[in-house]
C-alpha cells in the first residue's frame, strides 16, 4: 500500500511541476495574497505574455546589463489599509519594499521613482505625513527619490492613497546570486523574528477585537546584505525578503526553482509570543504571514556559521538564526520538523487569509 501511495504522490508532484496556466474567470483577493494564486497569475499570464530573459527568473528585481554595468530594476505597489500602523506607515513601506527587492538581488539601491494615486477628500496632512515618512526612509536607506507622478481619483476609490515605487540599483560585483546554485547541504539563515508586520496590520485594522503589542518590522535589509557579502560573498547562493506569503512562500519558491528539498526546524524559527498567540487564535500559521524587514539567505554549509555571525553583528540582526538546510529529497518541497517531533509539508499559501498588508 505504501508503494501505491508513493506512486500517487509522485504523479501529483509531476503535475505540480508543469508550468502554471492562468484559467480563472475573475480576479479574487487570493490573486494578491502572494501564494499559489498569485504565482499562477504571474507565471501563467504576465511572464508568459511579456516573455524575455530578464523576466524569466521571476526574481525580486530584474537583472539587466546596461553598457556592461550590472543593473537591478524593480517596481512595487502599496495598497495597505490602514495607512498608519504600529511601527510604520504606507510611505515607509513604499521605500523599504523597493529598497529590499533591490538589496536581496545583491544590488545597492541608487534611485527611486514614485507615483501617487490620491483619493478626493484626502486630508492634506495625511499626505504630508506620508511624504515625510518616505523622505526619512529614503534618507535612512541612502537612496534619493528622483522622479514621480500624481493622479487623483474620485472619493471612495483609493482608500486614501495608493503608492507605487520603482527602484534601480547597481549589482555588487561580489554577489553571484541564483536559486539554481543552491546545493544539498546548504544552510538557511533568517535575519530575525517573523510575522511581525502582517500581524501588526491585522491587529491595527481593529476588526478582530484582539489587542497585543506587535510592531511592524519595516526597515531596509541592505545592511544585512552588505554584512553577508563582506563575510561570505562566494558562498551566498541566494537571498530573498519574505514579504507577502511569508517565509513559507519564499522557501517553496526556492525549493521549486532549485529542484531541491528544504528542511526547516520549526522550533528554531523565532516568533514573538504575542504574534504566536494572535496567530494561534486566528488559526493562521506565522510562516505565511508577511515580513517587511527580514531576509532569508541560503549559504553554503562551510560558510554558514561565519555568515550567521555576520548577520548577528548588524544592529537589528541580533536574533538571526540558522533555521534549516537544503536536502536532495523531496525535490521541490519544504518539510518541517515540528516542535512535537513529527514531520510535515509546508506548502505554498492557498487562498487569502489576510487583509491587505502592503
Amino acid at each position, binding site marked *: 500500500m505504501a508503494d501505491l501511495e508513493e506512486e500517487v504522490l509522485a504523479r501529483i508532484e509531476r503535475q505540480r511541476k508543469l508550468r502554471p496556466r492562468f484559467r480563472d474567470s*475573475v480576479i479574487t483577493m487570493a490573486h494578491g495574497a502572494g501564494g499559489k494564486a498569485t504565482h499562477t497569475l504571474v507565471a501563467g499570464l504576465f511572464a508568459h505574455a511579456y516573455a524575455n530573459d530578464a523576466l524569466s527568473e521571476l526574481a525580486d528585481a530584474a537583472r539587466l546589463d546596461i553598457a556592461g554595468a550590472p543593473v537591478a530594476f524593480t517596481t512595487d505597489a502599496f495598497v495597505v489599509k490602514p495607512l498608519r500602523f504600529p511601527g510604520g506607515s504606507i510611505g515607509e513601506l513604499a521605500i523599504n519594499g523597493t529598497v529590499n527587492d533591490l538589496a536581496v538581488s545583491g544590488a545597492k539601491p541608487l534611485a527611486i521613482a514614485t507615483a501617487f494615486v490620491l483619493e478626493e477628500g484626502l486630508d492634506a496632512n495625511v499626505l504630508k505625513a506620508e511624504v515625510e515618512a518616505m523622505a526619512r526612509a529614503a534618507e535612512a536607506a541612502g537612496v534619493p527619490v528622483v522622479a514621480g507622478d500624481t493622479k487623483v481619483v474620485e472619493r471612495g476609490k483609493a482608500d486614501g492613497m495608493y503608492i507605487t515605487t520603482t527602484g534601480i540599483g547597481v549589482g555588487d560585483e561580489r554577489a553571484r546570486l541564483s536559486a539554481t546554485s543552491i546545493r544539498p547541504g546548504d544552510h538557511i539563515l533568517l535575519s530575525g523574528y517573523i510575522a511581525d508586520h502582517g500581524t501588526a496590520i491585522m491587529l491595527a485594522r481593529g476588526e478582530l477585537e484582539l489587542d497585543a503589542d506587535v510592531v511592524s518590522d519595516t526597515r531596509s535589509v541592505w545592511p544585512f546584505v552588505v554584512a553577508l557579502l563582506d563575510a561570505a560573498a562566494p558562498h551566498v547562493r541566494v537571498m530573498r525578503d519574505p514579504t507577502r506569503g511569508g517565509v513559507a512562500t519564499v522557501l517553496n519558491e526556492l525549493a521549486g526553482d532549485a529542484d531541491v528539498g528544504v528542511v526547516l526546524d520549526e522550533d528554531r524559527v523565532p516568533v514573538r509570543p504575542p504574534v504566536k498567540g494572535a496567530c494561534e487564535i486566528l488559526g493562521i500559521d506565522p510562516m505565511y504571514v508577511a515580513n517587511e524587514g527580514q531576509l532569508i539567505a541560503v549559504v553554503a554549509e562551510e560558510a554558514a556559521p561565519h555568515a550567521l555571525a555576520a548577520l548577528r553583528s548588524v544592529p537589528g540582526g541580533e536574533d538571526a538564526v540558522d533555521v534549516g538546510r537544503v536536502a536532495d529529497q523531496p525535490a521541490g518541497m519544504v518539510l518541517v520538523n515540528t*516542535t512535537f517531533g*513529527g514531520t510535515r509539508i509546508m506548502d505554498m499559501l492557498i487562498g487569502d*487569509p489576510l487583509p491587505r498588508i502592503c
Partner: protein
Amino acid sequence: MKFVDEYRDAGLARALGTKIAALAEPGRHYKIMEVCGGHTHTIYKHGIEDHLPETVELVHGPGCPVCVIPMGRVDDGITIARRDNVIFTCFGDMMRVPGGDGSLLDAKAQGADVRFVYSPLDALKIARNNPDKDVVFYAIGFETTAPSTALTLMRAKAEGLKNFSVMCNHVTIVPPLKALLESPDLRLDAFIGPGHVSTVVGCRPYEFIPKDYGQPVVVAGFEPLDLLQAILMLMTQLADGRAEIENQYARAVPWEGNTRALEVMQEVFRLRPYFEWRGLGFISQSALSLTDDYADFDAELRFDVPGVRVADPKACQCGEVLKGVIKPWECKVFGTACTPETPIGTCMVSSEGACAAYYNFGRFARSKARAGA
C-alpha cells in the same frame, strides 16, 4: 507560548509513542477513527503519525462541518448572497466551497457582498450597523457552534432586529456516527471522540458505541499530546478487553456537557425530519432548523431559495473519505483535478477536511523522509 507549548513536548510524545507500541499485539492491525476534523488537522500539522507504530492506523471521520455541506445548500446560500441589498456573512472556510456553479468567493468577486466573520455575533454587529441592509448569517457546524448561533438569535430577537436572519445548516454528531457504525464497508477498533462538540453535549451521547457496538471511545483535546494520550487510553482498553467511554479532555469537557448551552439550543432549534449530508446522503433527524418562535429570522423562509438537490460531481469520492472507507490519496481526483486551489470536493476545502490536511501537510513519502532524517 504558555498553555500551548506544554502540550507539544517532543520528549513526552516519544514516551507516549513507546507505550503505545508496547501495547500493540504483534500481527494485529488497529484502526482508530478520529471523528473530528479538528483532530485530523492536528494529526497532520504536528506529524503525530511519526510517533505511532505502523500497525496503528488513524482513520479520518465525518466531523468536519464544512465538508458535510451538500452542493445544493451552497447554491441556496449563493442565491441569497446575490440579492440586492443583502450582506451575506459566513465563516472563512465556507467561502471557498464549490456549489453547482461556483463558490461564495466567486459570487463575491462578481459583486455580491459576502463577508467572512469569526462569530455570528460579528454578523449581528454588521446588521446593527447597516439598518438599511438585510444581513444573513450562513450557520454551519455541529453542536460546537450551534449554541453561539442560538444565542445570537436570542439577542437579535430581544433587540427586535428586523434586518437579520440565519440560514441554518447546523448538524448533530450522533446520527452520522450511527450511520458509520452500521456501514458494512468499514471495520474499526475504537473511536477518538470529538472534543469541542463534547464540551456542549458531554460524553453521554456516545454510550451506544461501547454498549451496542462494543468499541471504546475516548473524548480527546486538540493539542498533539492530547491525541497521543487518547490513543494510549484506547490501546489500553483494547489490551484489557474493555469498551468504555473515557474522557481525556476533562479540562474542558464535563461529563454531562454544558447544560446552559443545551437549553439555549432547545429554545431556538428543533430537529429537521431529515437533512442531506455531502457524500453520505439523507440522514434522518440529523440537523437543526429554527423553531416557529424564530421563524422571522429564518433566511430560508425570508428569501426564495431554489432548494434543489445538486448531485456531487461523479469523480468526487468525498462520501467515502468522510466515512473513512478510503484514504484521501485513494480518491481518483485527489491532488490532480482536485486540489486546495481548485477543489472539487468539500474535504479539500476546509482546513479540517481530511483531503486538505493530507494534501497540505502529509503529502510526502514518510518512510523516505524518516530514512533521510
